[in-house]
Structure formats: structure tokens, C-alpha cells
């Protein structure tokens, strides 16, 4: 639910990074925070536990600047990936304009990815949203690790609707901006 404020000439869009625990959602936001020009981003807010696991969400606003006189801004959020934080996860999806699903490519995390994807469908359905109809991309993360599923396997298990996907190594920033560019363009397209 993007909010267009004609009075202050602002558009804010909400993009949520979703996925199982430890798949690299926070790492994506940290890399974006580190790399974008400081004058185009706000503070990175992390509500995390003492062991740096996301407890509620991370939040990073990124300014696109004025487009046709409208100050355009993306609000990037992550959700807590651990299964038992579902109540918090659902809250963060409220008013979402675009979703990035960050999958952990390691073979032993395939089931966790599938479970998290089902959970995403369910939680969106509670807001009357269908993942097939909103801006959505998938990021296959941790492609540098030795024990990973093939792209074909991941695609067949996680991407039946063939949405755009990107291979990534979040800790090194590979694929992070490709993913962000893709989802933000889809969100912008949906506005016009």
C-alpha cells in the first residue's frame, strides 16, 4: 500500500525481505546501507536479540530523490526468519508493496525455504494479498558455499510462477543490488 502524499509531494513504498532464519536478509540490508551514498539513506534500525538474530525487524529507508516533483522513497524491511516469530512477521507485511524472498541455497535448508515460502503465502493471504499479483522477486543466496542445491532444483521447488530470480552471495554483496533494482522497478511499475 504505497502512500502518495500530494501535499508534501512524497511517495513511500514498502519492500519486505522475507525468508527462513539465517538466510541473509539482514546481510542484504547491511550491504545496501554500507554501499549507497549516505545522503540517500536513513538510519538502519535493527531490532535484534543479543545474539544479533532479528527479533522484530530491520528497517532502512532509501531515497530515490525527486521524480517528476515527487520525493520517492523505498522503505526496506526484513522480517525475523525463525519459525516461532510468525506473529511479528505478519505485522511487518502490513501494507507491503513488494517482496524479496531470500532463499538459503544450502541443501540442508531446502525444507526451511519451502516452509518459509508457504508461510509467506499464508501471511499475505490474511491481508487479502496474492503473491502472484504483487511485485515479487527471489534471491538465491549463499551461492559460494560448497553444499548447495542446483538452481534447477531451487527453481522447481520455490518458483512455480517463474518470477525473476537472482543468484547472490550476500556477505560479498554479489547480487544484492541486482535484487533491489529488480524489485524496486517492479514496485514503481505497479504505481504507474
Amino acid at each position, binding site marked *: *500500500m*504505497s*502512500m*502518495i*502524499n*500530494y*501535499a*508534501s509531494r512524497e*511517495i*513511500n513504498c*514498502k519492500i519486505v525481505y522475507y525468508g527462513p532464519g539465517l538466510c541473509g536478509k539482514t546481510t542484504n540490508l547491511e550491504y545496501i546501507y554500507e*554501499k*549507497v*551514498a549516505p545522503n*540517500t539513506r*536513513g*538510519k538502519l*534500525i535493527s*531490532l535484534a536479540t543479543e545474539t544479533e538474530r532479528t527479533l*522484530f*525487524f530491520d*528497517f532502512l*529507508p532509501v531515497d*530515490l*530523490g525527486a*521524480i*517528476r516533483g*515527487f520525493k*520517492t*522513497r523505498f*522503505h526496506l*524491511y526484513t522480517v525475523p526468519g525463525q519459525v516461532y516469530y510468525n*506473529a*511479528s512477521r505478519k*505485522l*511487518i507485511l*502490513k*501494507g*507491503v*508493496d513488494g517482496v524479496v524472498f531470500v532463499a538459503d541455497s544450502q541443501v540442508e535448508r531446502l525444507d526451511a525455504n519451502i516452509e518459509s515460502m508457504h508461510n509467506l503465502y499464508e501471511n499475505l493471504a490474511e491481508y*487479502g*494479498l*496474492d503473491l502472484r*499479483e*504483487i*511485485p515479487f522477486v527471489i534471491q538465491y543466496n549463499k551461492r559460494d558455499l560448497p553444499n548447495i542445491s542446483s538452481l534447477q532444483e531451487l527453481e522447481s521447488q520455490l518458483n512455480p510462477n517463474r518470477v525473476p530470480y537472482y543468484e547472490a552471495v550476500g556477505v560479498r*554483496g554479489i547480487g*544484492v*543490488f541486482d535484487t*533491489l*533494482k529488480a524489485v*524496486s*522497478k517492479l514496485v*514503481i*511499475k*505497479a*504505481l*504507474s
Partner: protein
Amino acid sequence: MAGGASSWSFEERDVQRIDRLLQGFLFDSNARCTLLVDRTGQLVTTAGEKPDFDTTAFASLAAADFSANDQLASMIGENEFSSLFHQGEKESMYLADVARRVILVVLFDNRTTLGMIRIKTKGVVRELAEIFREMFERSATAPAARMETGFAEEAEDEIDRLFGDL
């Protein structure tokens, strides 16, 4: 917008009406400033003393705070907590629900009292709710807000420029 998520939009006259109301409220209650935050975490407007903190981050946290408390309310069998109060040593804040879509955040210090804030908030929330209901009805019946032609192209170029080589 496409995809079933409902957008809503503010016009100049909405903001003027809201601002007049909030200015009146600040005068009556002696609060320092107010922020209106939508439930998804976006700042709608502020009135009173200009906040010297990051209002974007503040809005996202205030919405999360309110939503989390909503869930706590339902767990103990309440429909909602229509207001929340956080007390600090010098500064305190009072949050109140407006028409289930927006949160009024009032920041105040020892120039006033919680009782006064509570009483004055009740009135202003009623009037704000009326304005927002009208706005939502208008948004629901009007065709979805669209940006002018050329907006998407220009935004995409800007996305490439900003994120292109990173």
C-alpha cells in the same frame, strides 16, 4: 495500484484540515508536538515543534509498537488497546488509534499532564477519524491513484543510476 493492495492519497486540502486540527490540539493541550503515522509505518504529517530526531525511523517504530500491542490486546481478549502511554523522565509519549488506519503520536513534557493529554486527545481523535473516514471513502470509490506518464521511466533511470554500479 496493481496487485490488490489499496493505495490512499492525501491532497493539499486534507493536510490543511488536519493541520488546523492538530494546531488547535497543541494549543489546548500544551503538548510539544504531534506526529501522524499510518499503520504501515509511514509518516503522514507532523505539527508543533519540529522533531530533532529521524522521523522516518520514528514512524516505523511507532507503527510496530502499536501493532505489537494490538496483538497483545487480542491475546488477552481485548479488541484493541486504543491508546498507549510511554513515560520518560522528561519526555513522554501518548499514542492513540485513529479510525484503525492511523496513529496519533503526542510528545509532551512537564509543561502539561497525562490527564490533560488524555482528555484533549479524545476530542481530536474523534475529529481526525471523521476526516480520515472521508478520505478512505473517497479513495475507495475513486480510481486508484496513478502517477503521471513518464514517472516510471524516470524512476527506473534513477534506480539504475543510484544502484547501478554498486
